[in-house]
Structures are given as structure tokens and as C-alpha cells.
């Protein structure tokens, strides 16, 4: 009997773990993105344009990375690793990394951290002490990144991470952690920025947030930004992440007639907000969610009701950046990525590739791959890549890259509509009221 109970308990724990896993977030951007290859006079020749023969490499610079290839975030881990691998391959094919006047080959050494933050930290230590890698790339997810960066700091080896957006990774005064994503507090900033530029008359903003760290961080960032632009945040409340009903909050929001409604939570909450807003005839000129609209399930679940809704995105294949790196444009990146992997690059891959590019720039600027010299070069780095601007603030986080905004438009497709200078479509604004659709 006792063994049976313990087996059941184990099963229960397993299920809890499975059900707590964050839903696989995929960011499939529209495929019809025209994005013609833009050539700009500002673009310098990519590094190593003078291709030396492969055997002329002076040596190898090895990056170490714990990546989740199994466990809860195995898909995202694969996207991460594919991004790293592609960048390493493309840079090597272009002649490698220039250190002084020699060219070095790049290599990647990785271990599977099983989506476990503690394992991620242990493997980071192994990569440094046993495998003697030169530099570190980040694991997938805020949890593993939070732990792995502690080890990087301890051994004074830089870690450029591309897949942990939580601010607390960077609020510990660490000197060797660099994050290339836009931080959580910027997630909904693009939506507000865009709404203000489209309509100077908007005044009121309502924010609904799930009561978990990351969602609250996003909501706080949106609130601060809105207030700094003179908007009034008429509603800013959190709800329990397990809730099944948001109608009560929306009833209050309706009475306040906000111009913009922002949701910071999870896909399930975003679906609930839209469904119950329609139920209750709650209207706004612009709707924005931090998580949700980027996933294919959003449109599948809501059908036409998903029209006009904005979502924050780190990166999309449709952006028109013209970068100073081996990939240059999102369009070119997509072509190279699809040629190697036969699927459209998710943002996780793009940011991971961007992390490798960032190292290339820093090593070339430092003229060395000594960890401390690379660290100092990273701190001073400022360039535009196919992924957007890469520049770190004093905490080591890339607060300079704007979040892109995608919109589910009435043609049934998802379009990148912001930042205006790199967008592929015009935003559809304002959203009509539910009874006019």
C-alpha cells in the first residue's frame, strides 16, 4: 500500500511539473513578408569579407552553452541551439572571427540542461572548469539564465544570454552577464508608443496583469511609460494567475471607458480577456497583449474576434532592419535559416544567433578573446544587427532595442506594424466597437 501511495504521489508530482510547464510559445510571423533585400550605403562589408581558406584559421574560439533539449522547454531549447549553430556556421563560412590580424574559427560546446535551472548552473560550471570554453552563451528561459549567470560571474567569464528577459537577472550588480533581449518592462511599450503616434487624443489606459513576477514587471513598465507620456492609467489591477473568470475586472474597466486596454499575462488570460470583453461589450481603440497574439492558437481560438489586436514581439521575420553583421536583414536571416532547418525562424532562434554575432563584434573590437577584455568590449558595444540595435545599459541589459509590435489584421494575417521605420504594414486603428464588426 505504501509503495502504491508513493508511486501515486510521484505521478502526481510529475503531472504537477508537466502542467506547470510554460506553454510552448512560438512566434510564427507572416510568410508573405516581402522584405526585399535592402542595400544601404551605411552597411559596411561583413566581418571577414576577405575569406581566408579554412585551413588558415589560427585557432578555435569555443562557446559553451547549457541548452534545454529535453524537459519542459525542449522546443524553445532547440530553437536556441539552432540559432547558435547557424550563426557559428555562417560566421565560419564567412572567414571566422578576426582577432588582431588572425582569423579564428568558432565552435559551440553544449550540454542538455533538461530545462532545469540547477542543472543549467552545474553544466555552466562544467563548461568553464572541465571543458575550458572561452566564452559562454545563455541557456533558454529566465530561470536557468538566472542560475547560470551566477556561475559565469563567479568565474568571471562573460555570458551573453538571449533567452531570459526577467529584470531580476540584471538587478544583482553582475558584471559578466549581458542580455540581448528587450527587458520585460518594455514588452508593452511599443503598443503604447504606436497608439500615441497614431492618435494624439488618447488619454486613458487600463492595464490587467496576471499576478506573477514577469507579468507584473511588464505591467509596471507599461504604467510607467504611459504616465511619462502624460496618459492616465485609469485601471491597473492584478488577478490570480489561476483565475477562470475576468468578467468582474472587465465590468469595472468598461465603466472607465479606456482608450487602450493592455493585458499582461499568459495566452489563456489574453483569450479570456478578449472573449469576455466581447461578452460584456467592453470596447477600446487599441488592445495590446504581452503574450498571446504571437501564437497561432490566438487566431485559431478567437477567429475574427482576434482582429485589430496588437502584441509585443522581440523580433519578427518581417522587420526591415539593415544590420551591420553577417546576416544583415531579417529577410536574409530567414533565407539562411530555412535553408538549414526547413522551418521559419522563431524569435528565440534569431535572438540566439544575435548573441553569437554580438560576441563576434566584441571580440573583434577587443582584438582578443580574453574573457575580461571581451567583457569590457561588450559593455561598450553599440551596433545595429539584423535583430535590431545591440547596446547594453550599465546593468548589462539591452534596453535600447525597441519591441516590435504585431497586429492581427482583418485580412486574417499577422503583420509587423511597429517600429514604423522597420515595419511591413500600417496598423489598423482604431478597433471598431464589438457591435460594429
Amino acid at each position, binding site marked *: 500500500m505504501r509503495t502504491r501511495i508513493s508511486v501515486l504521489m510521484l505521478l502526481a508530482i510529475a503531472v504537477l511539473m508537466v502542467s506547470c510547464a510554460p506553454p510552448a510559445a512560438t512566434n510564427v510571423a507572416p510568410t508573405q513578408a516581402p522584405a526585399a533585400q535592402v542595400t544601404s550605403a551605411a552597411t559596411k562589408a561583413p566581418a571577414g569579407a576577405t575569406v581566408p581558406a579554412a585551413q588558415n584559421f589560427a585557432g578555435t574560439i569555443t562557446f559553451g552553452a547549457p541548452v534545454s533539449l529535453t524537459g519542459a522547454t525542449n522546443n524553445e531549447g532547440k530553437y536556441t541551439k539552432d540559432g547558435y549553430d547557424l550563426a557559428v556556421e555562417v560566421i565560419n563560412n564567412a572567414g571566422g572571427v578576426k582577432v588582431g590580424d588572425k582569423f579564428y574559427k568558432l565552435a559551440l560546446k553544449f550540454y542538455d540542461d533538461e530545462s532545469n535551472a540547477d542543472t543549467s548552473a552545474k553544466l555552466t560550471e562544467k563548461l568553464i572548469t572541465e571543458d575550458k570554453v572561452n566564452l559562454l552563451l545563455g541557456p533558454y528561459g529566465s530561470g536557468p539564465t538566472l542560475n547560470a549567470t551566477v556561475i559565469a560571474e563567479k568565474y568571471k567569464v562573460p555570458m551573453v544570454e538571449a533567452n531570459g528577459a526577467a529584470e531580476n537577472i540584471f538587478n544583482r550588480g553582475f558584471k559578466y552577464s549581458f542580455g540581448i533581449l528587450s527587458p520585460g518592462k518594455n514588452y508593452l511599450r511599443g503598443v503604447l508608443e504606436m497608439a500615441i503616434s497614431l492618435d494624439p487624443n488618447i488619454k486613458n489606459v487600463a492595464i490587467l496583469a496576471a499576478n506573477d513576477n514577469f507579468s507584473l514587471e511588464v505591467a509596471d513598465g507599461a504604467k510607467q511609460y504611459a504616465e511619462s507620456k502624460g496618459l492616465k492609467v485609469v485601471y491597473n489591477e492584478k488577478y490570480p494567475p489561476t483565475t477562470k473568470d475576468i468578467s*468582474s475586472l472587465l465590468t469595472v474597466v468598461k465603466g472607465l471607458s479606456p482608450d487602450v486596454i493592455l493585458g499582461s499575462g499568459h495566452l489563456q488570460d489574453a483569450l479570456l480577456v478578449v472573449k469576455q470583453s466581447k461578452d*460584456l461589450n467592453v470596447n477600446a481603440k487599441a488592445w495590446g497583449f504581452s503574450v498571446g497574439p504571437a501564437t497561432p492558437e490566438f487566431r485559431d481560438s478567437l477567429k475574427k474576434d482576434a482582429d485589430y489586436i496588437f502584441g509585443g514581439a522581440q523580433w519578427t521575420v518581417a522587420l526591415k532592419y539593415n544590420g551591420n553583421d553577417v546576416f544583415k536583414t531579417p529577410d536574409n536571416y530567414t533565407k539562411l535559416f530555412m535553408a538549414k532547418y526547413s522551418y521559419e525562424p522563431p524569435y528565440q532562434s534569431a535572438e540566439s544567433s544575435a548573441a553569437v554575432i554580438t560576441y563576434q563584434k566584441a571580440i573583434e573590437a577587443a582584438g582578443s578573446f580574453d574573457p575580461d577584455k571581451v567583457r569590457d568590449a561588450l559593455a561598450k558595444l553599440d551596433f545595429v544587427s539584423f535583430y535590431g540595435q545591440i547596446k547594453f545599459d550599465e546593468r548589462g541589459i539591452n534596453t535600447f532595442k525597441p519591441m516590435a509590435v504585431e497586429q492581427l489584421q482583418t485580412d486574417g494575417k499577422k503583420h509587423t506594424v511597429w517600429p514604423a521605420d522597420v515595419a511591413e504594414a500600417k496598423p489598423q486603428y482604431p478597433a471598431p466597437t464589438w457591435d460594429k464588426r
Partner: protein
Amino acid sequence: MTLDQFLSIVPQSIVNGLMLGGTLSLVALGFSIVWGILNIINLAHGAFVMLSAYFAYFMFTGFGIDPFLSIAPAMLIFFVFGYVIQRYIINNVIRAPLLVTFLLTFGLEIIFVNVALNRFGGDYRSITTAYSGIGFFIGDVRVPYIKLAALLISLLIAGALHLFLSRTRTGNAIRAVGMDIDAAKLCGVKIGQTYAITYGIGAALAAAAGVLIGMSFTITPDMGGAFNLRSFVIVVLGGLGSVPGAVLGGLIFGMVDVFAGVLVPGLKDAIAFAMLVLVLIVRPQGILGKAFYK
């Protein structure tokens, strides 16, 4: 929020509370009857709700069958399913202490959830019909058609169950088993069969609720747990094994959830579940007092 603002949304909130409470009543009803008669805290209940929501989803997306038309077939299928599960699985340990049946249904839930996760994936889905979200106004109060229909169907099914239990032979047998199992046995009631029928009815009620929930909430393999928890509170609130108790408990839960959401959204769940503690201290037999099986 000012008092005026609050007063202006009271009517809408009452309607929201009624509609939420109606669906929750229906979920709790099946949980209540199984607990009351079989003395099983049926943790697989939430899994039936979930599986039935998927049933309605696939009938709608695959064959274009309106979800309201899926209610009756779903109830029939899950009645048979529940009957078989009780007869051939749970019945083996029915005489064991409460903890054993509790763990067994927990295990069943885990199996169902993981099979669903494996078959359907973890994606969030929802049934969006042409009339989803459409409704009418009474003054300023918005009443969405689907939720109104869900409330009416819940009340209708609860009424039908009440009549079934009090007016039919099988219903009387179920109540007799609940009241005094030995006396019922002496009177010729087949205990095993009655148990299986009761469990089947519980599953059928979960199925009806699952279809309605699939239309107004999101569907995922792990959605059931939240409904188990709510059913538990509602049953304790209203009184164990009582049809009017489950309905009243559900409506009260809905109201409290909605008004807590208006006033202190962050503590919405905490307040709803604090009711459980309060009721257990103040009135442990539930609001409607004596259960019908005693």
C-alpha cells in the same frame, strides 16, 4: 473606485455572478452526488469536464456540429464511460477507506490529463461559434446569449436531476443507498449497479458542464483541476449531496467571485476560498443543512 462607480456596475456584476455561478453549479452537482452517495471525493470529475469540452470542440471543428447539440450525446457517452469506470475500477476499492478511493480517482485524473496532453497537445483552444460573444442589453446590463443559455441549461438539468432522484424507482434506489446501505440491500437494491449508475450520472453532469465551459472558457488538458477545487468549495457551501444545495452554493460562489473581482481583484481567489473555511467553522453541514441522503 467611488461609491457611484461601484453602484453603477452592481447590476452588471449580479448578472455576471449568476451566469458564472450557473455553470459552476452544474459542475458541482455531479461532484456532489458522487460524494454524497458513494462517499468518494471524485478527483476525476475535472477530467470528465475537460474531456467533454474537447468532445464538443472536435464535434464543432471537425463536423460543424453546434456545441449545444453536443450536450445530449456527450452526457450519454460520459454516462456509459462513468458507469464502466465505477463498475470495473473504482468498485474494487469501494469498501476501502476514503483516502484510497481519493487516490484512485486522483490517479485516474492524472491518466486522463496526460492522455489528453499526448493526444491533443497543450495548446489552448476554445469553441468560437458565429454567435459567440453576442448578446442583448437590459438597460445598461449586457447579457451574452451563450452564458444565459448556459445558466438556463444548468438550472434545467438540476431540476431534472431533482425530479429523477425523487420521482423514479432508480432515483429512489440511489437515495436509499445514500441513506442506509444495509437497509437498501435488504430491500433488494443492487448496490453495485446503483453505485455505477450514480457515478455515471456524475460523469454525465460533468460532461454537460464541460460543453458549456468549452464555449465560454479556454480548453486545455489541465483545465479540470480548477473546477475540482471550485466544486469542492461549492459542495461544502451548499451542503453535501443536495441538488438545491449545489445550485445555491454555485450561485453564491459565482457572486462572491465576481464581487471580489470588482473590489479586490488580486485577492479574488483567496476570498472565494476563504468562504470554505468560514462555512466549515460556522455551519459545517452547509447552508441548506441536512443532506437528502440522511
